[in-house]
């Protein structure tokens, strides 16, 4: 009897595990909230600012490249890899709804690109500033009035 119960149980658990796996899709605000909770835990937390994010995005930080070197000054536009010329789809979710929906992808690119642009990981504060900047961009490149 116990075997009859446990087999479907195991199958269900396996399928449930598979079902949630492929893309752990989240909304941009869920991802932002998780960055926010890390930022709040850090000393000197000051809330996120789109203006600070924009400034961060457009300026260099000691290395040759800024974020804008590949993503352009307008994250709603199509970018180009600064070295290979490979087309980079827009970063702003308003122009490219796939952006900021996969936490693993967000983490992967922050890690890589912060290493390239700053030579270190970005703090949750920096990530949050950039995210609110990106999430506030309208398709034509302006900002939402919040």
């Amino acid at each position: 009897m116990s075997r009859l119960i446990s087999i479907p149980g195991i199958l269900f658990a396996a399928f449930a595990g598979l079902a949630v796996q492929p893309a752990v899709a989240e909304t941009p605000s869920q991802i932002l909230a998780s960055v926010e909770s890390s930022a709040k835990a850090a000393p000197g937390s000051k809330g996120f600012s789109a203006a600070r994010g924009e400034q961060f995005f457009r300026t260099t930080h000691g290395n040759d490249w800024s974020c804008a070197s590949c993503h352009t000054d307008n994250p709603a536009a199509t970018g180009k890899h600064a070295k290979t010329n490979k087309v980079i789809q827009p970063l702003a979710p308003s122009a490219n709804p796939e952006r900021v929906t996969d936490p693993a992808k967000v983490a992967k690119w922050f890690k890589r690109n912060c290493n390239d642009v700053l030579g270190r990981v970005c703090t949750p504060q920096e990530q949050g500033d950039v995210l609110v900047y990106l999430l506030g961009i309208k398709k034509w490149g302006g900002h939402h009035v919040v």
Partner: protein
Amino acid sequence: MLFDYRSSFLLFAAVALLGGMMSVAHADDDDDESGHKSVVSNAKWQAECGSCHVAFPPRLLPAESWRAMMSGLDKHFGNDASLEAPDELEISAFLEKHASKRKHESTAKPLLRITETRWFTREHREVAESVWNNPKVKGPANCAACHIQAESGDYRERNIKVPR
């Protein structure tokens, strides 16, 4: 608990994919590097390698080069291209399986730049310096600048269009 599912799923997926790749027959033109259409493909390789440059066909380098490349992704020609371990494993296996089987020039260190292989220099010897320097090309890593079907693995002569 969720994390356990996730890691075991990834492991399962990696093993399943590896198994799948191993069962693919050798009915491709692996050893022919002279610009034929590449038929081998792998979704992870395409997505990950292909996000910054054309996903270069595995047959363009020998297995030891791919091994060296994949073990240094955090410093990939000056950029951080690091991957999560399961993705790295899967892509490495794919690259090594379909790597060039030719006798490559024996160098102390495995060649990492496709552009430094004898094959590449020979195939591109007629390409003028001005073409490489064209801002639309930017350099030899940008295959798709001239090989207009490079994204789909097609490097055939008829699909070459040098930008002006």
